[in-house]
């Protein structure tokens, strides 16, 4: 039940008026003042019973407002009985003695019987009592009670209008719609109070009620006016001057009234419809809004200018851990950690004074504080809302702990990844679809010699030599068009180009990465220069080894196989007693073994050349050549051979003695071995000199030479070129070349018109050269 404190003053005032007016008139009836009756007889237009009725109604009204509904009901019933009996008297023409029930009326004014209420007064009482009673029964104003009160008020208002318009021709209050002015005023007050009060909606209906009342009153008056006019024509005794004027007045009144009537009806209808619409849509939009707010994903808080929380939605309870009741009416700083907690009042005051907003209208990340004291990041957007009754701020808050955690985790994993990429041994580079470099790691700087800044934003072809440099854009567009990849997804060996222009082999694998913002390619690059050169050296060594194995297996085995055959023949010949044949066969056997021995010695030399470490020494070239010639001529003595030495006797090469001796020995013995037997004057020209840092030894002969087809195989292993001179091991020139290379030099062949020229060039030896130059080691 509502407390009585906030009672509406209007019904109280109306009730008080009824009580005072009724009590005053009742007192006048009891005192019977002759002077008052003579001067103001209108006061006595309210008979004693009516005065009593007003007092009762006034009390009932106040009691209803004070929620003493039982009192209201009892009083309303008494009034209804009084009014009902009076109406009965009028209708039945009977006298129940009501007029003398309380006082003996000393005066009769305007009513059919002294002290009796007019019928309209009684009717108004009956209706008012019914309205009060209904309200008392229902506990609040119902539509029926309001309607009844409306009719009561209408009766009173019609009477008042009658007086105002001067329609009433005499103090005849017995007519159906007549009552004394004082009664009419009192009923107007009472009826208005009844209409206005009872529930919250009634006050809003006032304009409508007033309009309806006016219309109804006019309608009633028009009817009365016509009734009166028509009755006047039939009353011969009713006559007064200016009758025609009065009729004109009444006619024009009817016209004006009709216009006013239509206007008022229209306004009433419009007003009613608008009220219905606005109240319905207001209700709907309120419902919608509160549904939106209550079901919002974000927390929504409104505060007033001082920071007091005016409303929170359910999400706020989840976010902050407080219940709604705990937050309502508190200062919003309860939801903030320090330092905001202490400073927030200052922000508000500062904003109110200067208009400088920290958050309002912008939205930013701030910190919130839960009930359990934990602090968390939240996204806050604040709007300033000016309402008719003041300024409020509405904040939308979103707990972004999870988002923040994800962002932090993302940042950390990015950092980790960046560290991994940056410290990778391989170069990692990414380009966009147009070939522009978007990222490089440190290894790329090392591999290509460019600083990262020099590469970023440039086209990746800068890192390629021709022809890739010119073709790369084509690859990219071709891939984009046809999806035919040259490298993507496979990886292969390509060439790179360093800043200094040098070209090097690299291993490249490229991946195509589709991102939201487009396609990118990431390449992993490994400089394989070293691996490549090692690979090549290894392949060469391997091929040499294979060749060596094959050749030795064959060349070492073939004299043995041949010796076995010769042994069989020797046994035959021994058995047959063919001594001459046996001697020849044994000689062949011996030559076989000599050849085999030589070959093995050669192989040993070759191995030594590769393996034995040696120090550089100053070697006299002429002496070395002379020694080699001596060794050869002991075996292959040829008295006709002429040898010309063009070597300064003082000339020395600084190099490794054994290897150099092998070179010289080979050159000399080849020159001697491959003489042309048919040559008239066979000769060998040997020259040696050091010029421009190169020590050159040249051996030229006019022997049988090398057939053009065989020249490219000259320095290969186990190549013998001369069928009828099969005493070589096939290793001589190979050993020569290997030794020259071991000394950092070269060996080459020049064909002559007749014969051959072999040239060995060695770098001019330096004092501290060790054995590191030896690539065969």
């Amino acid at each position, binding site marked *: 039940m509502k407390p009585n404190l906030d009672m509406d003053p209007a019904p109280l005032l109306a009730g008080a008026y009824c009580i005072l007016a009724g009590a005053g008139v009742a007192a006048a009836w009891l005192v019977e003042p002759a002077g008052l009756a003579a001067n103001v007889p209108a006061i006595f237009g309210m008979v004693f019973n009516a005065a009593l009725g007003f007092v009762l109604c006034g009390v009932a009204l106040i009691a209803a407002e004070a929620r003493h509904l039982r009192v209201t009901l009892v009083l309303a019933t008494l009034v209804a009985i009084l009014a009902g009996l009076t109406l009965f008297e009028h209708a039945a023409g009977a006298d129940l003695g009501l007029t003398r029930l309380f006082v003996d009326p000393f005066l009769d004014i305007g009513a059919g019987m002294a002290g009796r209420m007019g019928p309209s007064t009684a009717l108004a009482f009956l209706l008012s009592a019914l309205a009060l009673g209904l309200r008392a029964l229902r506990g609040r104003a119902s539509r029926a009670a309001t309607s009844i009160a409306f009719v009561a008020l209408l009766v009173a208002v019609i009477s008042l209008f009658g007086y105002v318009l001067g329609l009433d021709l005499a103090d005849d209050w017995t007519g159906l719609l007549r009552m004394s002015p004082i009664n009419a005023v009192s009923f107007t007050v009472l009826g208005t109070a009844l209409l206005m009060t009872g529930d919250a909606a009634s006050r809003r209906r006032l304009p409508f009620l007033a309009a309806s009342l006016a219309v109804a009153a006019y309608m009633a008056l028009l009817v009365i006016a016509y009734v009166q006019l028509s009755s006047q024509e039939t009353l011969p005794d009713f006559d007064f001057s200016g009758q025609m004027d009065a009729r004109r007045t009444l006619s024009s009144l009817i016209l004006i009234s009709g216009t006013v009537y239509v206007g008022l009806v229209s306004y009433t209808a419009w007003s009613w419809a608008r009220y219905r619409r606005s109240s319905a849509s207001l209700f709907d939009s309120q419902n919608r809004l509160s549904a939106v707010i209550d079901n919002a994903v974000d927390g929504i808080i409104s505060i007033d200018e001082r920071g007091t929380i005016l409303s929170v939605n359910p999400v706020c309870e989840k976010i902050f851990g407080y219940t709604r009741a705990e937050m309502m009416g508190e200062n919003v700083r309860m939801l903030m950690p320090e330092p905001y907690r202490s400073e927030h009042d200052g922000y508000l005051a500062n904003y109110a004074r200067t208009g400088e907003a920290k958050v309002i209208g912008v939205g930013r990340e701030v910190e919130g504080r839960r009930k359990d004291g934990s602090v968390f990041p939240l996204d806050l957007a604040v709007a300033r809302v000016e309402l008719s009754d003041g300024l409020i701020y509405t904040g939308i808050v979103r707990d972004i702990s999870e988002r923040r955690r994800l962002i932090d985790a993302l940042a950390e994993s990015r950092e980790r990844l960046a560290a991994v990429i940056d410290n990778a041994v391989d170069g990692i580079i990414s380009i966009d679809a147009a070939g522009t470099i978007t990222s490089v790691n440190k290894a790329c700087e090392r591999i290509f010699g460019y600083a990262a800044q020099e590469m970023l934003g440039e086209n990746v072809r800068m890192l390629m030599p021709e022809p890739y440099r010119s073709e790369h854009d084509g690859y990219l567009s071709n891939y984009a068009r046809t999806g035919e990849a040259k490298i993507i997804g496979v990886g292969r060996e390509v060439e790179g180009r360093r800043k200094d222009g040098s070209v090097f082999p690299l291993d490249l694998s490229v991946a195509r990465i589709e991102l939201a913002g487009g396609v990118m390619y990431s390449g992993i690059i490994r400089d394989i220069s070293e691996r490549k050169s090692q690979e090549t050296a290894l392949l060469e060594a391997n091929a040499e080894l294979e060749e060596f194995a*094959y050749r030795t*297996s*064959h*060349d070492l*085995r*073939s*004299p*043995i*196989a*041949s010796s*076995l*055959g*010769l042994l*069989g*023949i020797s046994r*035959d010949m021994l058995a047959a007693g063919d001594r001459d044949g046996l001697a020849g*066969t044994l000689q*062949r056997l011996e*030559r*076989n073994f000599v050849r085999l021995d030589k070959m093995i010695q050669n192989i040993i030399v070759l191995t030594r050349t590769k393996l034995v470490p040696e120090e550089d020494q100053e070697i006299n070239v002429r002496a070395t050549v002379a020694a080699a010639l001596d060794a050869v001529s002991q075996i292959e003595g040829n008295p006709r051979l002429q040898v010309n030495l063009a070597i300064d006797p003082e000339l020395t090469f600084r190099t490794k003695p054994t290897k150099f001796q092998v070179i010289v020995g080979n050159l000399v013995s080849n020159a001697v071995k491959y003489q042309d037997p048919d040559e008239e004057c066979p000769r060998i020209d040997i020259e040696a000199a050091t010029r421009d840092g190169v020590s050159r030894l040249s051996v030229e002969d006019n022997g049988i030479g090398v*057939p053009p087809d*065989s020249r490219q195989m000259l320095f290969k292993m186990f*190549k*013998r*070129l*001369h*069928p*009828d001179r*099969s005493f070589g091991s096939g290793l001589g020139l190979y050993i020569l070349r290997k030794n020259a290379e071991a000394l950092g030099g070269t060996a080459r062949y020049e064909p002559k018109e007749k014969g051959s020229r072999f040239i060995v060039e060695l770098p001019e030896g330096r004092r501290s050269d060790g054995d590191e130059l030896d690539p065969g080691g």
Partner: protein
Amino acid sequence: MAMNSILVVDDEENDQFICEYTIRKFDPTIEVLKAYDGSEALALLRKTTPDAIILDINMPVMNGFEFLDRYAVEFTVHAPVVAMLTSSHLGQDRERAMSYYFVKNYFEKPLTSEHLAVMRATLEG
């Protein structure tokens, strides 16, 4: 078909000697022709076609395989039996040699009368 002539292609003087001796001992009526490398053999084959060829692989100037290639391409008439005689016992050498239709036998040095008997059987069979 009788084996009346054999061409021996080998750069080794000793091997030539062994072959000739062994063939004479096997059948003195067989004529022995000699070539010291592939190109000499091709030159000789342009003049006459022997009943059999004994061919070494490792020879200077033109080795046994080079000879076989050119013999296959440049000649329409081939000796009925070509036998490889080599100190190489590498499987791949053997396979390569046997891929020529006219190469019938593959022997390891030294040549023996058994080898010659196989060749004669191949020729007569």
